[in-house]
């Protein structure tokens, strides 16, 4: 896939510029991974090897850090990232039913993306909006007091933006 390759090369070049701008590389692995995920959207192995070389640390260490922290993804996410809060406040106000409804409507498990890469579904722990429980967020936009009946509306809202249909 030559297109994807040049795309990735450009992104890694952007990352390199960032790494070069750091006053020191010591202790900056997590900071660089944050930036890389910002630029690429996720952290494929190629990018991990690249970062290891640029920071002068073993790839195994990069992989160890990436897999330790739940914020870092090895697989690509959907265009619209749905995150259902499973923090305690949301849990006691029925968050599980919301997650189940999303799974059913999108035919995915948590941690997966739909085939067309439009949506991905994840659970997170508390976004600090417990007063609005249960809470979900789509690309960072918060929806509070969500009921299972709202799930379809939310999905359709984003599909309308994209002019697609559920699949």
């Amino acid at each position: 896939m030559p297109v994807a390759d040049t795309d990735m090369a450009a992104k890694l070049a952007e990352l390199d510029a960032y790494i070069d701008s750091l006053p020191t590389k010591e202790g900056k692995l997590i900071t660089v991974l944050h930036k890389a995920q910002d630029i690429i959207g996720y952290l494929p192995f190629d990018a991990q090897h690249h970062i290891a070389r640029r920071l002068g640390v073993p790839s195994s260490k990069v992989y160890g850090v990436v897999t330790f922290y739940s914020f870092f993804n090895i697989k690509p996410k959907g265009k619209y990232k749905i995150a259902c809060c499973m923090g305690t406040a949301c849990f006691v106000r029925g968050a599980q039913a919301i997650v189940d409804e999303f799974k059913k409507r999108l035919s995915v498990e948590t941690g997966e993306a739909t085939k067309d890469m439009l949506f991905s579904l994840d659970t997170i722990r508390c976004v600090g909006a417990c007063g609005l429980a249960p809470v979900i967020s789509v690309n960072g936009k918060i929806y509070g007091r969500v009921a299972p009946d709202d799930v379809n509306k939310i999905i359709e809202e984003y599909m309308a933006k994209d002019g697609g249909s559920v699949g």
Partner: protein
Amino acid sequence: MAKITSNILVDVSGGKDVYNALAKAVSAAGLGKSVQVAAVDGFGVKAEGAVVKVLPSGGYYTGVAPEDADRIVQAAASGEGGSPVPAYTTNVRVALKNVGYIDPASIDDYIATRGYEALGGCLTNNTPQDVIAAVKASGLRGRGGAGFPTGLKWEFAGKSAGDKKYVICNADEGDPGAFMDRSVLEGDPHAVLEAMAICGYAIGADEGVIYCRAEYPLAVARLENAINQAEALGLLGDNILGTGFSFKISINLGAGAFVCGEETALINSIEGQRGEPRLKPPFPAAAGLWMKPSNVNNVETYACVRHIFLNGPEWFAGIGTEKSKGTKVFALAGKINNVGLIEVPMGTTLREIIYDIGGGIRGGKQFKAIQTGGPSGGCIPASLLDLPIDYESLASVGSMMGSGGLIVMDEDDCMVNIARYYLDFTVEESCGKCTPCRIGNMRLLEMLEEITSGKGKPEYINELRELGEVIKDASLCGLGQTAPNPVLSTMHYFMDEYEAHIRDHKCPAGACSALLKYVIDPEKCTGCTLCARNCPVDCIAGERRKTHVIDQERCIKCGTCMAKCRFGAISRV
């Protein structure tokens, strides 16, 4: 020029209708020069409907509608109006003093509330030893969970030899269901920066690091802005206020790992490593970040510091109980009418918090338990509601203060399922470094999963208890040492629920879906087919006008049929 004599503060978090009506009423009455209407983002806890506060009387109006605007404006103009509401007036604001009252993006607003006066005073009038003595005298204890005396911690770090030291702010706020630190960071970022600089002066550090969870982008943005503003005014950076003391602060992002809230794991994470805890001792005060002496405190702990210097340590020590001084911020959530942040003096009872401030249980249901301390804490039953909250009393009933999450549970919550929920959390978040935590908690979880799905064996009760005690004793860090608390405390207070699951295969609260059955009452079923048409897995069979039947094998217990039935024919047993 006419002077503003009254203020009307409107909570606009639920919409601006009331705000607009009040603003209109003020100009219609020609009072624009003396009565000011201001929009604020809530007064702490949130009840249904708009809330308005009038100053100087300090009274509140609750459930305000736009039609009430004229009446409120007239009352406010005469300097009166409103009435005290326990939900707000029981609050004593220290850590949250400025939150919601000043513009967090403006250093001028902060300075107008005597901002950076405490730092200036410490740098010019006090020795580092004086500063430490004042913090010790105040009785301030860590708000991050364990309640270690803050002054003592500063003294240890101060006495550690070293040319380089660090001041670290723990803004990881990992307890799921709590957001105290987030509000402080977003609402009053300078208060944290000022306290870190005071701490730096006290222990001899010139560098501060804030470790903030990546899930709080607004907090990070506000902190960055605040740091830039303070540096521009010479309140942070080199040679602060011309005193020769230099202190700079940087921000480090977390990456979603609960264990990184533990101070040594946090330090590893700042260094760019996997966030696994270190063996203590050495404590951070002796060898912390880059093995240099470091002081780690929580956001709320820092937020209290400047008030100790502005009002005197005796003032702070005058609030609270004998061993727990000052106030504590709690995030009130769950099955309660008013949810949100509250700040109450230590020693306030759970009953006051739940009924006076929280307005009681939602939907008139029966209170069952209140959870404190997050995944490290426990569930406290109704019989202990008159417990005054402080570090020791919470520990004595098998829970802990924790960082301040208070989750209220009602009759519909199954205590075994709640214990399972927390164990699920700790198993996922265990870093895996030590065996008791990595494997022991997994075994606890497996047993709880079997119990909640009706496959629990009677011997599990003893096994849970024994294994729980071993994990507490043998784990490396606080995560493992406290992980069994949710199980042990629910077993202590709600053993009947465990027994009902194991012996009778019943979930008394009706929460464990594997133990539930939906059945159709043939007497009431009219055969309208509505349930069958709505069933997501097509497991309801029956002809039109004939009784329908649910295939229990295929039923996923979603409850849709029961919600849809117009004749009350479907029940959960």
